[in-house]
């Protein structure tokens, strides 16, 4: 009976390792997709707002900061999450 327990534990670790890694890769792909979507949205917003930028308050520092903030919000740095 102990034989079966060791065997099950070993094969459990193998499947956990392989599927765990696959899951991690798919989650990273999903996160990258989301990041790409945010970047596209930010750029779409910026290009739509472009003609009115001269009238916008805080024009001098906003657009670059906006991209950074939105990307940071969608992807917090390790340790912040």
């Amino acid at each position, binding site marked *: 009976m102990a034989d079966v327990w060791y065997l099950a534990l070993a094969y459990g670790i193998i499947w956990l390792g392989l599927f765990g890694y696959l899951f991690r890769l798919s989650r990273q792909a999903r996160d*990258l997709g989301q990041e790409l979507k945010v970047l596209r949205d930010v750029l779409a917003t910026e290009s739509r707002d472009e003609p009115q930028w001269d009238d916008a308050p805080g*024009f001098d520092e906003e657009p670059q900061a906006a991209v950074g903030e939105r990307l940071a919000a969608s992807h917090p740095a390790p340790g912040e999450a």
Partner: protein
Amino acid sequence: MKGLLPTTLEPLGRGHRLLGAAALALILAALVAVFVQAPTEKHLGDVQRIFYFHVACAWTAFLSFFLVFVSSLAYLRTRRAAWDMLAVSAAEIGVVFTSIALLTGSIWAKHAWGTWWEWEPRLTTTLLLWLIYVAYLMLRSAIPEASRRATFSAVFGIVGFVDVPIVFMSIRWWRSIHPAVVSGRGMDLDVAMYPAFFLSLVAFSLVFVSLLTLRTALERSRQQLEEMKRRAIFDLGGEVSHG
């Protein structure tokens, strides 16, 4: 600028899906061979069946680290980012398979030797190998600048590979209690165990290729996105300053 962005991440082609399906089919075939076809070993009983996938994992780890070595050499020669992406992808997969090999080996050892861990040459050098490539991945995450990161990692990847032949030869060079599948006299394995053994090696090699394709595509997409972000920030900054 917006037009330069890809609409989705790099898609994985039909070839990759076929590769994944083939890997899965071979793994299932290997499982059947291991649990149905292979004979039960008379001393260790069913626990010996850990051996087939344990060795296959160790083999895949060696394959990964060899690829890190080759890619690192190629990067230092050509300075092409593609080699660096291949190296980091292979290193990560190598660490996963080394971890599995260490853990399954430990379970086997508990049954065969009565202890989870023994500081004998094969186990110690394998643990060292694992630590080397974990350090490789940590080094990468500590260097933000891409070309410096790639150069340092390439040097580390080449030097780190020195441990792979040491792991392989350790049981011949030093007194070891670890069993030797391939010895100076050839294969030290019952012929009836050959199909399960070789099928497991081929299956895990295919799993490795499949994972490597996936991981490299992810790395390429990540670096493309980073480049797009830099350009987006630069372009928007430029528009502001020209405004």
